[in-house]
């Protein structure tokens, strides 16, 4: 290992650190979706089985759904900015440079936040349309 490789390794480390954070970011949307899913199904099942107040749980879960959508919207917005397609015009980020990887992870996180938002809306629909424990 010679000295001239040293700065390069730092650069790599910085790059990996960035990607590490971005990888975490792309899981955020689906994580919010998953948490919302578990909360809805678990809480409604227990509420109906135990005879608790379904109206209160329903209202609470609708608020949680709104919060989940706001959270996913925020993740999507951050990802959209990271993707930066409006400025670069590059949809596929085919080149293997750090910048391309950075944009690509933003792209992936953005698409995942869209599917997560759709998932949250679909899971929330029974709260709106069914309402009770029928």
């Amino acid at each position, binding site marked *: 290992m010679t000295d001239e490789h040293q700065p390069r390794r730092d650069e790599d480390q910085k790059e990996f650190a960035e990607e590490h954070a971005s990888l975490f970011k792309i899981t955020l949307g689906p994580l919010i979706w998953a948490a919302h899913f578990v909360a809805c199904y678990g809480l409604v099942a227990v509420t109906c089985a135990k005879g608790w107040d379904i109206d209160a749980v329903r209202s609470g879960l609708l608020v949680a759904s709104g919060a989940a959508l706001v959270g996913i919207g925020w993740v999507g917005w951050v990802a959209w900015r990271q993707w930066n397609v409006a400025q670069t015009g590059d949809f596929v980020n085919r080149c293997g440079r750090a910048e391309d990887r950075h944009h690509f992870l933003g792209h992936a996180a953005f698409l995942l936040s*869209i599917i997560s938002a759709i998932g949250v809306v679909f899971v929330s*629909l029974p709260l709106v349309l069914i309402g009770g424990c029928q």
Partner: protein
Amino acid sequence: MLVGAVFLWLLVNGAFYYMSRVRPGAFDQRYARHILIGGGIVLPVVVLTVLLVWGLSMLPDPRRPGDGLVVRVTGEQWWWRVEYWPEGADAPVLTANEIRLPVGQRTEIHLTSDKVIHSFWIPALGGKMDMFPGRETMISLLPERPGTYRGQCAEFCGASHAWMAFAAVAMEPADFDRWLASEAADAVPPSTDAAARGARLFRSEGCGACHAVRGTENVGQVGPDLTHVGSRQTLGAGRLKVTIDDLSIWISHTDVLKPEVKMPTYDLEPDQLSDLAAYLEGLK
């Protein structure tokens, strides 16, 4: 459903034809992106959302309270014990292996089971509902058109599970009321000599130990109530028709027709068999 299937078939094959024959070259990237996003994301999301909303709007229906009549069905191996409880009734009208429902009224069907789990299902009228020993479940059905539909046990329940079916008859309310009144009545006495001989045979062979024929000394509760068996659509829970021939075949071949069924096979002379069948067929 057929229209939808034809539409999808035309759409897929039309797209394939267009891409392979009409315009085989590479697509403009912008155009291709529109097709992918429109056809791959926007269209499925819209279609699934519409279907989900539609499906969810129907989901509470089978749990809605009925309009008065309650039918209590017990799953047995492998037949259906059926009790009709009209609004305010003190005692049920007992029958078996056939469900009759008034059109335009929501009827609550209370379900339970004798020994194993069964599942009550009339595909034309609604979804499935499991029947558990020692527990009561409920499904309410609202038939919209008169007709005879097939019902079937939808949970494997033993050797003759596949032969545990029934006829579900949706009738106009006035017809239903008339039918229920006649179903509540005692059995008609035998009207022919053969049927009279059959009635004596029914008693002497011990059929009444398991089967009830109301208005006679036969009060068994192990097997289906036969008070009006001659007026039913099927015999042996959907296994045969209620004709003299089929009744004879059933009595002499129960285990062949319905493996492991409790009812033993009766080895009677042909004329005894036809007398017994004539009696049962006459129980309208």
